[in-house]
């Protein structure tokens, strides 16, 4: 599956012996650069002739940093969680035919000793890697490797077709935008194509402002040519000659790889004047965005490219009619464009086989939070949440239970655990009060407070609101204040009503989608977790022990050995005591930072729900009930 139908050179390299090291932001953070140095040293020491190639990330973040060793006549093997000091041992064992290293996976091929085949692992076999299939396999900075695995085939097909035929192809595939709203791609393109005039623009949205999602970054870092190919196809179809890729400056590696890819494509004649002899001219520019969540809104992104404050404007006219510099413009998410490139190469039939009746194809999801195997996974649309969380991501870590999953970031909502049979497609999720969004899934467990999560998202949208329309500006602020009050234990029973009322107004009156969807996290948590809100308001209690004003730090005298580590560690000097006896926490001074609890070698300092009335409290007893 992974190495099927790949040319020999991509698998084994020119020398027949290849070591792949993933160099993407996530793997570099996990130490891939050090591993690369380690490999170079080991190879030199052992005197091997081997090709060491950087590749992208394949989305299995829990095994970072990994390396893959392939040698002709040997089974390809992936080693997970590699450190520089064990690299040499791994290579030796591999060459000796011993594949029993604790973390080795193996590919289909020659049978070896007890190493699981990657294709048989839950995390791999449940995926359909339609667009991410080449991530982690090819060198993202080499256009040759992309060409070897069938790259730019879609563009070649597209250039042979008329614009109408391309749109027809997309219409049959029923591809819907992967940026969140799920608008059919062909309709958008068709509207723009119909517009008169020579100057049109296409923009690839790689801004990915949604916290908790990283599939766009992963694609741009691991397979940038696929995005480029999709963008050129888009340009050709609507008749544009200039394209932009909108990347956040906070993702420097993605921007660098896209720029490099554009340069290589220009050299090979896929960009520039007279592309592949077809007479069509098209060039792109990578635009480094300075970072603002509201740029996800099409009209705001256009303002940003024009060098202005990213304020959205009233629609219609839609950008497809009047966009960048008043010219017809289409904006597509990079994931959509990658789909376009793959559909044009493989044909719409294969794409339409995947997914469900109303939405075809696959979608990438980033699963993070309380699961064993965090990572980016690609599955057909309509896959139940359960499959993704339990089969792919491995369920919750030991001793934890999953409470809910947050889908779609600040514009999305929560789905509680009893609804995990829900298929993930645009409509089902919408009816459950969440959205597909960009595909970020944050798994929440018992240590997460839903009021706090809602407060977090609203504080995000309040900070990111551009301030242009008063409903958005004041509404987000009002909701944030109310939630802060509830989380601080000062909420009243009217507050829930107030939240609902504000949400309703915002959904109707806000200028852009940021404001209209800002209340989703509140409404969905209120819908499924109203009890937690009531706990905060009525009983001043936060079961998850997250909301600081509603919890108390106490010392358990049974466990305490009187070592006074906590006394020394406290940054505000709120703990006092003598050696050998249980110290006392002054609850008035305590800022609830948790330093003492982390410092205590005996785990004697615990958080308990509920707060202590300050007048009542006399610091006489160590353990407060």
């Amino acid at each position, binding site marked *: 599956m992974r190495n099927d139908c790949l040319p020999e050179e991509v698998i084994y390299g020119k020398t027949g012996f290849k070591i792949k090291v993933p160099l993407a*932001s*996530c793997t570099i953070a996990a130490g891939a650069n050090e591993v690369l140095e380690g490999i170079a040293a080991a190879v030199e020491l052992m005197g091997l002739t081997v090709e060491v190639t950087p590749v992208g990330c394949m989305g299995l973040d829990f095994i*970072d940093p990994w390396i893959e060793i392939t040698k002709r006549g040997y089974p390809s093997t992936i080693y997970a969680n590699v450190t520089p000091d064990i690299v040499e041992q791994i290579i030796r064992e591999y060459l000796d035919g011993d594949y029993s290293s604790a973390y080795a996976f193996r590919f289909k091929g020659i049978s070896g000793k007890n190493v699981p085949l990657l294709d048989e692992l839950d995390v791999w076999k449940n995926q359909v890697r339609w667009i991410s299939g080449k991530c982690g396999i090819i060198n993202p900075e080499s256009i040759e490797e992309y060409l070897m695995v069938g790259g730019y085939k879609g563009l070649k097909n597209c250039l042979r077709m008329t614009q109408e035929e391309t749109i027809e192809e997309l219409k049959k595939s029923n591809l819907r935008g992967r940026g969140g709203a799920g608008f059919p791609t062909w309709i958008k393109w068709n509207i723009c194509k119909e517009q008169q005039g020579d100057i049109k623009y296409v923009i690839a949205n790689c801004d990915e402002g949604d916290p908790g999602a990283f599939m766009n*970054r992963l694609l741009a870092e691991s397979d940038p040519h696929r995005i480029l190919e999709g963008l050129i196809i888009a340009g050709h179809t609507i008749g544009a000659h200039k394209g932009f890729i909108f990347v956040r400056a906070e993702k420097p590696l993605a921007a660098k790889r896209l720029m490099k890819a554009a340069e290589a494509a220009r050299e090979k004649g896929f960009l520039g004047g007279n592309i592949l002899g077809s007479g069509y001219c098209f060039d792109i520019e990578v635009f480094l965005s300075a970072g603002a969540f509201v740029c996800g809104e099409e009209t705001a992104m256009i303002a940003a490219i024009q060098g202005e404050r990213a304020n959205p404007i009233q629609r219609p006219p839609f950008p497809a009619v009047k966009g960048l510099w008043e010219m017809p413009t289409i904006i597509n998410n990079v994931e959509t464009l990658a789909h376009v490139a793959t559909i044009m190469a493989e044909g719409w039939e294969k794409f339409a086989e995947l997914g469900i009746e109303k939405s075809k194809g696959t979608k990438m999801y980033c699963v*993070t*939070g309380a699961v064993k195997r965090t990572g980016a996974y690609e599955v057909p649309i309509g896959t139940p949440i359960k499959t993704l969380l339990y089969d792919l991501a491995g369920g919750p870590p030991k001793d934890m239970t999953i409470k809910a999953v947050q889908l779609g*970031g600040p514009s999305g909502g929560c789905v509680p655990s009893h609804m995990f049979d829900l298929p993930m497609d645009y409509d089902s999720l919408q009816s459950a009060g969440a959205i597909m969004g960009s595909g970020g899934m944050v798994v929440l467990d018992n240590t997460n407070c839903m009021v706090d999560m809602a407060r977090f998202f609203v504080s*995000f949208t309040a900070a990111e609101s551009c301030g242009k329309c008063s409903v958005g500006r004041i509404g987000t602020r009002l909701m944030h204040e109310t939630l802060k009050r509830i989380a601080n234990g000062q909420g009243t029973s009217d507050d829930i009503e107030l939240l609902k009322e504000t949400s309703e107004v915002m959904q109707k009156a806000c200028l852009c989608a940021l404001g209209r969807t800002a209340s989703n996290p509140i409404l969905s948590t209120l819908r499924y977790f109203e009890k937690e809100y009531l706990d905060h308001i009525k009983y001043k209690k936060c079961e998850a022990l997250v909301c600081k004003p509603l919890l108390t730090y106490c010392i358990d005298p049974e466990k305490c050995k009187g070592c006074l580590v906590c006394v020394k560690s406290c*940054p505000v000097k709120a703990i006092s005591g003598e050696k050998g006896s249980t110290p006392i926490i002054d609850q008035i001074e305590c800022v609830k930072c948790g330093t003492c609890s982390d410092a205590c070698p005996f785990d004697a300092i615990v958080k308990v729900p509920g707060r202590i009335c300050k007048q009542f409290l006399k610091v006489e007893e160590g353990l407060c009930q």
Partner: protein
Amino acid sequence: MQKSLILPSTSDTQLKQFILNVTVDATRKDLIHVLQSVQENYGYLSKESMRLVATNLGVSFSEVYGVATFYHQFRLQPPGTYVIQVCMGTGCHAKGNADNFEHLKLLLDLKPDQKLSKDKIFSLEAARCFGCCSLAPVIMVTDSTINDQRLFGHVNPKVLKKILGEYREKAKQKEIEQKCEMIVCQRK
């Protein structure tokens, strides 16, 4: 004193020359790009630099200021030698990065609105998602003198203390090296 961060008062002409260079072919639409280059070089956008950009591009100061304050990337205050960015994405929040932020504030002895530590070695910022959610909670430390970024995953108060210690040590060594250099220069 950091090497590449040039004080506007001492090198006014240098700043002028630099901004002239980056704005020479630029028009109004390149404003964000110009500001990015200024920040990359000077670490932040001083009032003076924004004024120069405004004059050179032929737009009003308020327009430049408006753009500079709108986007997260732009900094209007000089950063410390090491900029600590605490990820405030959903994944990191769910794993307790808000606590880490508070903890760093305590460790660096910062007042609520203060960003720069007293010794000017560290500045603390909240950042949006770095896209490394699998390592949550994460912090990024940027050495603003050489623009070197390092990301630390799975941080907790203990790790934070260690990281700060390491960077303090580094800063100390740098200072010593610079002093030695100065002495050598003086002798020459």
